[in-house]
């Protein structure tokens, strides 16, 4: 178990940080949604990778019975739900952005902030 042996976690951490960075640093709202997506994907990758058993296959009993080494199917199933949640979040986020564009004529957060300040 050396550092490189845990490469799946490194990928997860890298994706997560990229997602968070985009979410925080970008002013464009659509890019923020993209960052959020990357962030969520990293979590899904994490869950799927912890379920993997080396040499494991699908959890199906072979013809004629007998044991088979299989990966844990539960996290995969749970992540199907998490993916649905992610899609719903993205859909709602984009719908809000459409509304924001109709109301402000911009989807750049700094310009929107400027407009709000001018109003007050």
């Amino acid at each position, binding site marked *: 178990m050396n550092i490189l042996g845990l490469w799946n976690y490194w990928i997860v951490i890298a994706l997560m940080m990229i997602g968070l960075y985009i979410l925080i640093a970008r002013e464009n709202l659509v890019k*923020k949604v993209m960052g959020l997506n990357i*962030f969520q994907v990293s*979590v899904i990758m994490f869950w799927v990778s912890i379920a993997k058993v080396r040499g494991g296959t699908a959890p199906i009993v072979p013809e004629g019975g007998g044991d088979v080494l299989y990966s844990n199917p539960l996290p995969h199933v749970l992540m199907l*739900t*998490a993916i649905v949640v992610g899609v719903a979040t993205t859909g*709602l986020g984009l719908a809000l952005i459409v509304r*924001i564009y109709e*109301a402000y004529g911009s989807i750049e957060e700094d310009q929107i902030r400027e407009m709000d300040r001018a109003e007050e």
Partner: protein
Amino acid sequence: MIEHLPALQTVLPLLAAPVCVLLRRAALVRVFAALVTWSCLAIAFSLLQEVLRNGAVSYELGGWAPPLGIEYRIDVLNAYVLVLVATMASVVIAFPLAGRELRIPKERFFLFYALFLLCLAGLLGITITGDLFNIFVFLEISSLSAYALIGLGRDRRALTAAFSYLAMGTVGGAFILIGIGLVYQMTGTLNIVDLGQRLPPVLGTRTVWMAFAFLVVGTSIKLAAFPLHQWLPNAYTYAPSVVSAFLSATATKVAYYVLVRLLFTVFGFAFVFERVQLTALLLPLSLIAMVVGSLAAIYQTDIKRLLAYSSIAQIGYMTLGLSLANLDGLTGGLVHLFNHGLIKGGLFLVVACALSRVESPRIESLRGMGKRMPWTMAAFVVGGLGLIGIPGTVGFVSKWYLVLGALDKGLYFVAFMILASSLLAVIYVWRVVEVMYFSDEEQAVERHDAPLSMLLPTWVLIGATIYFGFDTELTAGVAEKAAAYLLGGAS
């Protein structure tokens, strides 16, 4: 039928939401949604009675036995939170929707009710379930509908507020999901009670510490605990007032419940308060939240924003009770969960009443309203007294327990801070009262109060803040039982 009450508690509103979209007629949908919500309240009350009489109820979803199957587990703690959520929903649903506060035209009001029921289903689901992953799913159901509800506000800033809440809330949800993944990795179970038994042998591992950090930070975002409260002021300010009333009284409270459940049932008292020493972090942050939230509230010119900042301070009281981690402190936190729900829900409904007659939610525009809308403004005064914690209101009951909890631990400074921040509450409540009643303009004003259909639900909540100030059997009594139950395994 009776044994399936736990499942009906969430399934009923969940199925009713699409039916609202099919019915479409605003008047019809409103009656239907109200009936569904009130049945949820009846179910919640009968569950609470059942739990108080016979102890925890366990319900196996689909007949699959836990820990493999999903279990709905109701003990004193979540039966109590279920009653709070269902009560607040029942009052808010009775409140008539004001077209001028909503972005959607009257013929689309059925969408509001569909979202409302979905949000209710999510909140009840989080509370009732005994499965960690289920909590995440219900959390997202309630959060997604909450973002949409906030976005319904008339002001265009409601949209940006909803978007930033969506961004922060999703990060919080993902943090919770990572935390769940890490504990699942260590134990192979998602059932909360089962986790409580399987975690102790692996509590020393770094994985569990990471899981703890992710779960606490994730729920703290949803809870709007200082300093993770950034989404809250805008969301409550620009959302329609009824939505602010509902969310301020339920969404953050349910997040608090999740935090309590994680700390006491999943990770356990010994780990959280003796090894991690969470108090060292949570106590100062709670104190800062109490002071900074109240100070910020003093300087607001918008009454909804004032109430939102006051919410941050009040959440500070709740987390303070949690960080004290003794019987009185935890009782105080849990009872404040209920009491603050009543007070803040009531006050936001007062704002909704006021906005039916006044153009803007700025405090200035309430000038002289004490004469014009006597009942509405009197409700604000009573609710405000509750926020301050005057004896005879519910606020006093919570603060009494919190002070007792602090003194019990010998933390005199903390007890002093509870009283000091109550004084700050006097200032921000007084600022509004002064504008309402003591403005110089002495012109003959016509009495033009909010309609009875609005005043009635408002006064139900405001009246309850007085009633439960005297009769503490249901609130403090049950909260104390819940606190004793949570601490039971530890002390």
